């Protein structure tokens, strides 16, 4: 059967007036005064000639028309999801949707009126918002306010104020019991940047940090000895919310007291634990890492959850306000029940934090573990400590003599062999020296570099190498695997060997 929308294209191109005509071919006598008269629709049972049949649409019963509208609105609901809210298409489809919805509701009322004495079969009404089931009466404004979820997230985040933080989940849940008094105190920051802008900013800042090593070093200056992490987070707060200096100081203070900070002592503890074969995912270290990895984001998310709850509550109240039950009575939600429901939703939303939290802790632990790995630490990060040994060693030599004692006093555990130490021989001196050089910053040593180092090691260890004219015992050909080679002399010669690189 031919329906009023003769085809989606024709329907969509038509103006409202034309659509009205298409839908109500007999009701346009006034509106079509200036148009050529068209033959009226034939009376039921009459034998009008074929060519006199209405060209646009025959009148159809509400029962036939309603499923058509239903199908079309569902189609629109699907289409509208992918459209930009500000686009002309969105507007057009919203209008069409609203038009059809009103018509449907009218037809539904007529249909009910016609069924006098018949058993009422409630027809489902078309929801106010495309794609959402529902029964309430809606207006065009509701459709216009249909916003994709991503935009709503942005909007919610824009209303978040960093300073309004919750101590913990319990506090947060208590807060839901006081209908948003605390949230109401939050100021709106209209100048807040959008999520996308902030994300771009973070990425570009990240690039900037990486591209400017000297600046990185400055930022990391206090990582072990001070509170780099705190400064880092506080900086993000500042950029994110344009806080005043006082607020920033307060935020930093809060972070310092609430979030775990990796201090020099912590770093040493981590290092010692790793050196002893321990794991980071245990005890205090685990807690500390959790705080460092995601405390700030978790707290921001709690504030966000609060906003979401507030919105959900308002939405539910509005919908209930517009709803009347069969007896025409408004449905009321008991305040206690309302708190209970929102509390349950809040708990669910909080429990969803577990997923990113777990990944954050795992990733953060890995970074720290990799960067504080005893071998890596000994090789690189103890550079500063080694320098201290050099410096203090020189100082010691000036006043007491003997740098070995100083090294033991100043260097953290694991760093004793930084300026030399022993290396077990693997295969032969050549290979052992090559590996040692690779591990000490000579990424791809040349033959002459290895030769220089190997000769030094052979001489220092009293090993005879016939090919190189070096006398000693044992001969290199008689040495067992794992023979401990003293590498102190080679360490001292490292700079010179590095300088031999082409």
């Amino acid at each position, binding site marked *: 059967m031919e329906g009023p929308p003769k085809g989606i294209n024709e329907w969509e191109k038509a103006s409202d007036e034309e659509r009205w005509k298409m839908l109500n071919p007999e009701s346009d006598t006034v509106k079509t005064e200036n148009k050529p008269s068209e033959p009226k629709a034939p009376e039921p049972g009459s034998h009008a000639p074929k060519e006199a049949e209405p060209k646009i649409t025959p009148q159809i019963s509400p029962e036939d028309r309603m499923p058509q509208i239903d199908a079309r609105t569902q189609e629109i609901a699907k289409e509208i999801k992918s459209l930009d809210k500000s686009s002309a298409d969105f507007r057009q489809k919203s209008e069409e949707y609203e038009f059809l919805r009103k018509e449907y509701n009218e037809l539904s009322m007529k249909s009910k009126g016609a069924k006098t004495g018949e058993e009422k079969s409630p027809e489902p009404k078309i929801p106010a918002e495309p794609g*959402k089931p529902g029964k309430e009466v809606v207006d065009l404004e509701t459709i216009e306010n249909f916003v994709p979820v991503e935009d709503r997230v942005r909007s919610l985040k824009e209303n978040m104020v960093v300073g309004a933080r919750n101590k913990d989940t319990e506090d947060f849940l208590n807060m839901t019991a006081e209908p948003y008094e605390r949230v109401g105190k939050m100021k709106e920051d209209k100048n807040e940047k959008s999520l996308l802008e902030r994300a771009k900013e973070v990425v570009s800042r990240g690039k900037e940090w990486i591209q400017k090593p000297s600046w*990185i*070093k400055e930022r990391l200056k206090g990582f072990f000895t001070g509170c780099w992490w705190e400064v880092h987070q506080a900086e993000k707060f500042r950029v994110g919310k344009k806080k005043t200096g006082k607020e920033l100081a307060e935020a930093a203070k809060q972070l310092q007291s609430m979030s775990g900070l990796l201090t020099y002592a912590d770093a040493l503890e981590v290092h010692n634990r790793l050196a002893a074969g321990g794991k980071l995912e245990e005890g205090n270290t685990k807690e500390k890492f959790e705080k460092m990895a995601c405390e700030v984001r978790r707290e*921001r998310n709690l504030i966000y959850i609060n906003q979401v709850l507030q919105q959900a509550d308002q939405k539910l109240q509005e919908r209930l306000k517009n709803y009347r039950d069969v007896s025409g009575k408004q*449905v009321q939600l008991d305040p206690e029940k309302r708190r209970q429901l929102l509390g349950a939703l809040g708990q669910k*939303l909080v429990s969803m934090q577990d997923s990113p939290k777990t990944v954050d802790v795992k990733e953060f632990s890995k970074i720290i573990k990799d960067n504080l790995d005893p071998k890596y630490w000994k090789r690189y990060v103890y550079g500063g400590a080694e320098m201290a040994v050099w410096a203090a060693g020189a100082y010691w030599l000036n006043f007491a003599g003997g740098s070995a004692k100083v090294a033991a006093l100043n260097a953290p555990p694991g760093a004793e062999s930084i300026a030399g130490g022993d290396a077990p021989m693997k295969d032969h001196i050549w290979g052992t020296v090559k590996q040692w050089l690779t591990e000490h910053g000579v990424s791809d040593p040349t033959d002459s570099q290895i030769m220089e180092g190997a000769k030094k090691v052979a001489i220092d260890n009293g090993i005879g190498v016939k090919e190189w004219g070096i006398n000693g015992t044992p001969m290199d050909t008689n040495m067992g695997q794992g023979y401990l080679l003293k590498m102190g002399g080679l360490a001292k010669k490292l*700079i010179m060997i590095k300088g031999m690189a082409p």
Partner: protein
Amino acid sequence: MNKKEKQNRIKELTENSLIPKEVKQIVLKNLVKYDEKILDGMLESLARESVAMDKLASDLMRFDVESQKRWDDLEIEQLKVADDFVEQTFKDLTG
């Protein structure tokens, strides 16, 4: 690089180093007394420390960006859950 240049470079690197303040003071105070061999050792040590810190900084920055993405995704999921909650509750209450 002559001795003076080495001393200047060490000064600069020491200021940015993570070593304790007291040690820094000793280094800077005695810098002119150290012979070239010690200066070479210091330069190398500080350079290694610098490389390690650069790596740590880039790792942390990468973590920062990735972590932000995880929490942003969570927010979208949470909003969807809240939407479903409203729908379901409305349905339950209105029969």
